[in-house]
């Protein structure tokens, strides 16, 4: 995970062959080593308790619940695969399918746009701009305040006579009531999420751009590479660790979309209009707290978790091919 100096290699698959502290002969042995090991386990005791109580146990319990019928009172009953059958039955099937479609629609629009805009803004700001902190703040502030208190403003901005439609009117376009129209509610959510998420990605790209080796950029400029070629062949390959990090975070965040869609509904959490803003996490929330179907909700949550875990694993797997860490070594 780390190289000799303890630098981050979280995102790298390549690890040093031999850990500096591993070789069996070098490890302090006997009484001292046992004493140090005791202290080690004492220091990580809080983490062990937290891991057992708030990670390992819940994962196992939710696996058990996924095969149970449980209305939050008494004890769960084992019912085999009934909860998984329910996901495709005529009652729940279409609603769940819609929730999945909505979630994918939002995620597939939001994630690439956050990445592209975040990278574009970082490239603009990395050109020795005067007043850079001011611009950086303007782009990053939405990420800091991107909670309910900001989504509230967007309900007005995306309303019938809101700022967006006033702007569109100047262009001669008659805009919809974004968040109340089944055809546009997801686009409205996408706009809010791009506004809120781009700054965080920009900040990470910017940190990466500012740590690029100047020699390399200068050398490619001397060799006659234009700005476009320098971007595709020098900067972008060197930025792949940041791109990878943002992608992992972006996918988890995009598929987990909840706050935005919950708050913008006329009746919070209803998925209005016509379930067009119903997302997967909202569906799980609804099954748990409105229908008290903890077993079924767990089954859906497991499917969701498995999907996110599979996507994350695929990214780590493929990252060997396209994420470059050479420059560090």
């Amino acid at each position, binding site marked *: 995970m780390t190289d000799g100096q*303890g630098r981050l290699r979280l995102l790298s698959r390549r690890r040093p062959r031999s850990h500096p502290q591993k070789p069996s002969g070098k490890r302090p042995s006997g009484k001292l080593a046992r004493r140090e090991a005791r202290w080690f386990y004492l220091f990580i005791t809080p983490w062990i308790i937290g891991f057992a109580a708030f990670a390992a146990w819940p994962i196992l319990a939710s696996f058990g619940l996924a095969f149970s019928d449980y209305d939050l009172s008494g004890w769960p009953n084992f019912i085999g695969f009934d909860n998984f059958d329910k996901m495709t039955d005529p009652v729940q099937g279409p609603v769940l399918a819609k929730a999945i479609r909505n979630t994918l629609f939002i995620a597939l629009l939001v994630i690439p746009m956050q990445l592209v805009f975040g990278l574009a803004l970082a490239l603009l700001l990395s050109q020795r701009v005067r007043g850079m902190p001011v611009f950086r703040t303007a782009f*990053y502030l939405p990420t800091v305040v991107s909670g309910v208190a900001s989504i509230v403003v967007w309900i007005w901005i995306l309303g019938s006579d809101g700022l967006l439609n006033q702007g569109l009117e100047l262009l001669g376009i008659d805009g919809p009531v974004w968040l109340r129209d089944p055809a546009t509610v997801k686009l409205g959510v996408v706009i809010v999420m791009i506004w809120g998420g781009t700054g965080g990605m920009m900040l990470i790209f910017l940190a990466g751009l500012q740590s690029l080796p100047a020699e390399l950029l200068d050398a490619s400029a001397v060799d006659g590479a234009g700005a476009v070629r320098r971007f595709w062949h020098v900067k972008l390959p060197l930025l792949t660790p940041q791109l990878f990090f943002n992608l992992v975070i972006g996918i988890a965040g995009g598929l987990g979309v909840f706050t935005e869609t919950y708050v913008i509904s006329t009746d919070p959490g209803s998925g209005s209009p016509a379930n067009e803003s119903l997302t997967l996490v909202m569906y799980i929330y609804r099954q748990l707290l409105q229908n008290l179907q903890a077993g079924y909700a767990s089954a859906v949550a497991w499917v969701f978790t498995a999907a996110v875990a599979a996507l994350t694993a695929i990214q780590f797997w493929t990252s060997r091919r396209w994420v470059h860490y050479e420059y560090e070594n």
Partner: protein
Amino acid sequence: MGAGTRTAHSPRPGARHGLRASGWRASPRVARRIALYAVLIGLSFLFALPFLWQFSAAFKTNAEIIQPGLNLIPDSLRLENFNEALNAVPFDLWFYNSLFIAVLGTIGATLSSAFCAYGFAVLRARGSSLCFGLALITIFIPFEALLIPEFILFSRLGWLNSPLPLILPWCFGGGAFNIFLMRQFFKGLPRDLVDAARLDGASEFRIFWQIMLPLTVPALTVVAVFHFIYLWNDFLRPLVYLQDLNSTTLPVGLSGFVSRFSRDWSTLMAGSVMALLPIIALFAVAQRFIVRGINLSGIKR
């Protein structure tokens, strides 16, 4: 403007007697600079606009808000909006709950992640890489996967509508990502400090508390700032664990406020601005730590 006049003569004052050609050769470069600033100013205005509009609307009357046009400067500063928001809903309670949870949760997460990270970074033992690997895996488990059993656990314990489920879990390890960040920082400190203190007979706990921890204040600040922002904006957890109107936090309270006051924009804007104030104040003070934190987190490598 300044840049424009400068091109007419020479790019730099010192280059006055240099090549005449540099005057016209520089102008496309200057034009690019001007375009760059125009784009940056336009985009940053767009990004800041919702926020600027929200602040100005908090001081407007409802009639003024629905007037077409941008009108970022209100006709008069209507402070009654804030009173109305405070009187319409238990705003002060929500604010207090949010602050209580965010402050205690941040203290718990920061100290506990530093404590565990010291173990992972400095102390050697069999099984330490296994434990650290397990910790890293938990970074990628979505919270939604854990929500249902945790909800059942906390409701059985009778902790719903109390701040415990939102604070206590952070006191046990403080989140794997924070442990990871702190461990990186501890690893960067000179190990001689630990060895020298051991020779002097200091206990491991004293070495951590009196020697190493004070050196990690920059990293502690970064973890604390990010965690506070995270807890202040957290929505799903308080929504599930704090369903009682009086014991919930600002984001959950506000989300219910939206549907009830869907016509009363001025009150809603005043309320949401008050909800943003602590986080904006923190951001203003801690901005440089945030930027430093992104570098510290080492994603750049």
